[in-house]
């Protein structure tokens, strides 16, 4: 039982570390380049900005869910 818990915790910590690296890369590669364009839309094209905002937030959530699920499976599979 204790061994199971330790394995789960270890997998979770590894998952967090891998996820943190991916997210940091994402901040610099994607959000950094998007900020200028989004600010322009926010100031001059409010309607387009609103639609892009919804699309981005849903799109990112779906992609992140796929990434986290894949990480969960990969690391749990290895720890069992």
């Amino acid at each position, binding site marked *: 039982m204790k061994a199971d818990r330790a394995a789960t915790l270890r997998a979770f910590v590894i998952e967090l570390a891998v996820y943190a690296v991916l997210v940091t890369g994402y901040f610099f590669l994607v959000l950094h380049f998007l900020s200028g364009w989004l600010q322009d839309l926010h100031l001059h094209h409010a309607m387009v900005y609103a639609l892009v*905002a919804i699309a981005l937030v849903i799109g990112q959530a779906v992609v*992140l869910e796929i990434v986290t699920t894949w990480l969960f499976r990969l690391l749990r599979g290895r720890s069992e």
Partner: protein
Amino acid sequence: MFFPISNSHISPIYLVVIGFLIGIMGGFFGVGGSFIAGPALRAVGLDWNFAIGTDIAHIVGKSVVAAKRHRALGNVDLRLGLIMAIGTMGGTEVGAQLIQMLKRAGNVNTVVSIISIAIYVSISTFMIWEAWRTLRLQKKRKSRSKATKSANKKDESSFSHRTRAIQRFHLWPMISLPTSGVRISLWVIILVSFIGGLFAGFLGGGAGYIRMPMLVYVLGIPTHLAVGTDLFEIILSASYGTFSHAIKGNVDILIALVMNTGAAIGAQIGAILTQYFAGPKIRLAFVPLPLIGAAIVIYTMWTGHKI
């Protein structure tokens, strides 16, 4: 990190950690976590109108993930969620218009702070009283009869008699919700969802802190279904709220995207946790959360300091 849309400097680590914590809450309690996210954004210097709009946007993404999990677990009443979306959108628009009025009057920060403190404290007080009464009732029943193990897991509420009275209120058209095992007037559902939407538009987030208790106590939806259905409904209503607030200039989508990176992983953990707790215990665990939000707002209001 500089966020040019709201013209603010906020640590991305702070945003990711806040996102992670409210992701767990969202998955576990079925709430958007705006009672923490809104005050947390306000605490780092965002005006309330930006905190509210950005919080609603962030909740769209988080709810997609959490609702998908709950749907897989059979915790979503789709029919109820779709009906509720109508009332919620109306309420959200009214709430967003109220924020615009306050923004124009120049007192959005003071008014929203005071109202949010009052609401967060009221919710916690009510839920602790109700969950404590329900747990005590269950204990009494258990000691009186030779209760089985399953009785302890049964989703009960000390408001059940009032909920049944509301369900007996026959005002055409009556709606059957087979997934939840409830038949109720359409107008009661619309009223409940309108109130939830009003809170969402005015205080940000998905307003699950008000809608979730109303789903359980007013409509009589079992707690596990209320959690999943609330999340599903938040996707629709918060999308509309994001659109409405974004065209009014109240959304910094970059902040929302950074927060979502933490929420994605937190939501998965929260959804898994619901399987280990019975209804009243989930509700009791919810109690301190709005109080934390109220404490952050009081701190920011009185000291005027950023965290």
